[in-house]
């Protein structure tokens, strides 16, 4: 719109008088103020600033004026148009805010409506439990070792100093694959993983072995033909029972809380000598045996919970697995993961782990 208007304008106009410019401006300002929403304001914009609006038409006539009148008219019309543009902008901003506020109110929903379109999944507590245990040991610099569940008899028994006449080798305890003289069993403990580790690695060895094991137990609230164990094995120079105690104390504290420790009682396992049963200080009553005047249900009033077995690795086992028993000593321990979770979470019936009821498992979905 700059530059002289040299074109011929077919619209018949006369240059606006100053009062007429003011009047057109005032009419525009009044219409702007009266607009109640963005659509009305849009129409006002067209009516008062569009090509056919009085001020636009007046503006186009400025070029036709005599030079001395041009400046004055240009100034007057320019000011009027500026005032209208400014008012439009301000009103636009106000109406936009109002519009947005109204829209937000109108779009309000009931946020308490359900959102569970796809039901939640969950990992099994035996999986997360085994991972928790593994992580505690990995944090100490240990590694996690694994082996097959269908295992050589020699690795499950002989290598661990369970000789051919050991009572555990009877059909009463062990699942044998057919034919029985094939020397292949469903492992009765995760100890063959220890044997495999010693056979394939050189000390120092610090491994923890979680896994499934099998015994020919009838299925009831506290027994299952399949359950889960975690065993640990440390072989190094100068390893003692004190290191075993320190490791289990740390394990107990990491899993059950500050101040929860272990105690040893003499016991017997063919693969360890000396051997010990390990008890866990009850993490509920903290050894008191009672809680609020009633017998503690977790430890049945004992103050301690039987947790597992442990001991110094029998040098016969080291020899069978190719570890120099003169140079190295070791310790080993083992406990049931299922049983540990039962008392940790108050699971009354072992079968809950194996039934596959989603209500059981999803309850543990938040376990880390």
């Amino acid at each position, binding site marked *: 719109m700059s530059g002289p208007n040299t074109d011929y304008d077919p619209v018949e106009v006369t240059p606006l008088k100053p009062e007429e410019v003011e009047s057109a401006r005032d009419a525009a300002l009044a219409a702007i103020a009266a607009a109640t929403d963005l659509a009305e304001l849009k129409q006002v914009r067209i009516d008062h600033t569009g090509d056919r609006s009085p001020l636009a038409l007046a503006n186009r006539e400025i070029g036709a004026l005599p030079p001395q009148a041009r400046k004055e008219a240009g100034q007057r019309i320019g000011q009027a148009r500026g005032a209208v543009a400014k008012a439009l902008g301000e009103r636009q901003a106000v109406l936009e805010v109002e519009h947005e506020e109204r829209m937000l109110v109108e779009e309000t929903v009931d946020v308490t409506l359900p959102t569970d379109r796809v039901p939640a999944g969950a990992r099994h507590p035996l999986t997360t439990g085994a991972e928790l245990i593994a992580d505690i040991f990995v944090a100490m610099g240990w590694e996690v070792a694994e082996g097959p569940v269908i295992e050589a008899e020699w690795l499950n028994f002989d290598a661990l100093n369970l000789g051919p006449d050991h009572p555990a080798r009877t059909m009463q305890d062990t699942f044998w694959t057919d034919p029985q003289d094939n020397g292949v069993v469903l492992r009765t403990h995760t100890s063959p993983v220890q044997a495999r580790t010693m056979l394939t690695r050189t000390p120092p060895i610090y491994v923890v072995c979680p896994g499934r094991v099998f015994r020919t137990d009838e299925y009831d609230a506290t027994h299952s033909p399949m359950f889960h164990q975690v065993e640990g094995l440390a072989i190094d120079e100068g390893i003692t029972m004190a290191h075993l105690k320190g490791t289990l104390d740390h394990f107990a504290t990491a899993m059950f809380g500050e101040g929860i420790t272990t105690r040893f009682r003499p016991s017997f396992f063919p693969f360890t000598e*000396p051997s010990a049963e390990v008890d866990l200080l009850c993490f509920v009553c903290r050894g008191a045996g009672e809680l609020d005047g009633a017998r503690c249900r977790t430890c049945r009033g004992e103050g301690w919970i039987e947790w597992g077995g442990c001991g110094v690795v029998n040098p016969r086992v080291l020899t069978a697995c190719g570890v120099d028993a003169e140079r190295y000593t070791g310790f080993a321990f083992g406990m049931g993961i299922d049983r540990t979770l039962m008392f940790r979470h108050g699971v009354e019936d072992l079968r809950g782990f194996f039934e596959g009821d989603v209500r059981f498992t999803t309850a543990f979905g938040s376990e880390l």
Partner: protein
Amino acid sequence: MKTPVSWIREYVDLPTDLTTEALAAELTDLGLKLEAIEKPGDQITGPLVVGRVLTMDPEPQKNGKTINWCTVDVGDANGTGEPQGIVCGAHNFAPGDLVVVVLPGGVLPGGFAISARKTYGHVSAGMICSARELGLGEDHDGIIVLPQDAGKPGESAFGVLGLDEEVIEFEINPDRAYALSLRGVAREAALAYDAWYTDPTQRDVPPADDQGYPVVVEDPAGCPVFVARTVSGFDPAAPTPDWMVQRIQLAGMRPISLAVDVTNYVMLETGRPIHGYDADKLQGTVRVRRAREGERLTTLDGTDRALSTEDLVVTDDSGIIGLGGVMGGEATEMSATTTRVLVEAAHWDAVAMFRTGKRHKISSEAGKRNERGVDPTICEAAADRVVELLTTYGGGMAEPGVTVVGTPPEPTTITIEADLPARVTGMEIDPATTIRHLRAVGCEVAEDGTRLTATVPPWRPDLVDPFDLVEEVARVVGYGNVPSVLPTPGAGRGLTRAQRLRRRVGRTLAGAGCVEVVSFPFVGEAAFDQLGLPADDPLRHTVRLANPLSNEEPAYTTTLLPGLLKAAARNVGRGATGVALFETGTVAFPSDRGAAPIYGVDRRPTVEELAALLDALPAQPLHLAVVLAGERERAGWWGEGREAGWADAIAVVRRLAADLGVAVTVEADARMPWHPGRCARVLVDGTEIGRAGELHPKVCASFGLPKRSAAVELDLDALLARAVDVVPAPEFSTYPVAKEDVALVVDDSVRAADVEAALREGAGELLESLRLFDVYTGEQVGEGRTSLAFALRFRAPDRTLTEEETAAAREAAVARAAELTGAQQRA
């Protein structure tokens, strides 16, 4: 092992104020684990007294029973001194007998409160008790009749019945067979309290001579010592003294007859099992040998047994008369007419005892001791003790002859460095302590510089290795003194890649709404039939169990689906409307490469030996299975719900593969248990790793699952092996994208994946992505034809594409699709 505390105290001078609980705790710390403390009298309160039956009037009742209306002298216990009127249903007594009476106000085990009450037309003021009513055993055939000298009417019956006894039951570990006797438990108690101990086997025994019953041991390895003594003139009707009955009962055994009770009593006392023969039924020399092929024996439990050539047997001229150390034979069993008893106290080879017991499935108190190892030096003492008791209470006399065949083996010696206990336990144990404690447990110890040589006591056959001595020293020092020290392993490498990947698998599936289950891997033909597997399906070739828990499920599974589908059906049965489950677990495929060898343990197997061992094991790949049954998405305010179907199963596979960085492809397959038209074979690099899709309707029906349930089973090991290791950084352009949609009409037989592949190939490098967004069949495309609509996005790495470039790429893509699949661009 149940041990009455008063019996322990007979051999150990324990502090008089020592509680049973404290004693049990100390012994537990030494390795005899407390199982339970029994106080038989604990459950009985109020007046329980000795009474003498004065009168007894049988009164038949309308119900057919006859009751006895009795008057019983209970002294002053009832406060009046008058006879007590009591109704009694038992008939095994007579006027003049001493019985046990609980008076009104008393409470018997089980909270059974006694009061005077009207019954059968009398007021019965109390009860005459049976053993079972007092919690003293199962005997309920009649009431307890006490010996005439048991006490005076009105006296408390607690002492008479042993109800004031306290019994500790120990769980005895297999290495501590010596503690299966009062002799052994008392020795441990003496050790715990450093108390004076009397060994019940320390007695003067008559020397062996050649006048005794003739015995020949033909297998001295199986039976190193055989002692025989004979008692004659024995009264088979003589009763067992009450104190002995009581102790046998408190120890958990059943009293039978004097002769049998004495042998059991001496076994409990010394740990040495004794066998008694009716000597009048024996014919000629008693011999010990191994059984011969085809020989049989009817043992005294009435079982006719075929014997093995490993079994040790006792014979006489008539043939086999007993399974040595395990169970006697019926023919020479002591009976109610036995007046002459041959007492056998023999030491048997423990391994032979274990094998025979296992072979014949005989579990007995004698066998339990013999197979774990008994002191071989106490045969003479034990036999002499039996003779003493039989003659004292059975009225017989010991015949002069004493047969002793064989000698106990030489004691074991073990040499250790004196500091070994300290080095192994981490406790501060000086050599003097080690010597003191080894002597305390019965070893003789000789010092030689820094080395100690211990001669092991004969009752400890478990002490063989140096570390066995370490445990002995450690338990006496006390396991409670082991310090707590963390070892310092070197820096670890954390979880392995495979371990981390498996965690990822579980998280991905849980994130996809699946719940993990853990099921048993046992399977039977029925499950394979339910899956509809053909008779020759390789999955039916299983690793079978020799001793399954159930004959219905005799094998280790080859597929996770049976367990998973059953779990899904269980959830549906319990009211779930939609179930999404997953399981990871190993399956097994037989190796069919023969037996796994058994090697010795005196050295490491060689590399070749180890390889042979591992080679014999079944292949055990880790599998993943998923089942999606019923509602996959719920209905709600957002709209309709959605049932699971074939696509959900494949979606799970694709999502998992994407999370692992593995490129999987699927192609149509038809194999049970899947729907033949809705089954996808899953491939990675052209290798099949499993299947996914909708289950066959018959399979859904057979497992009780909703129609259109879908399932996945993958070889997870194979999938994880191809997981991306190090992810290379992606490169992408920031120039504007050009979008083009094309709709292609193809024959129904053409696979979408093939059209997609052709489009990709034709579109060339400018194609950034391609996605099938619609499938249409209907009149507009004609019968047997399908329209597939794809959204293509083009972008160049270095410039804004011109319309001409984009159009050219699109046309090239369409042209290639037309060429390879016959696709026609839809008008």
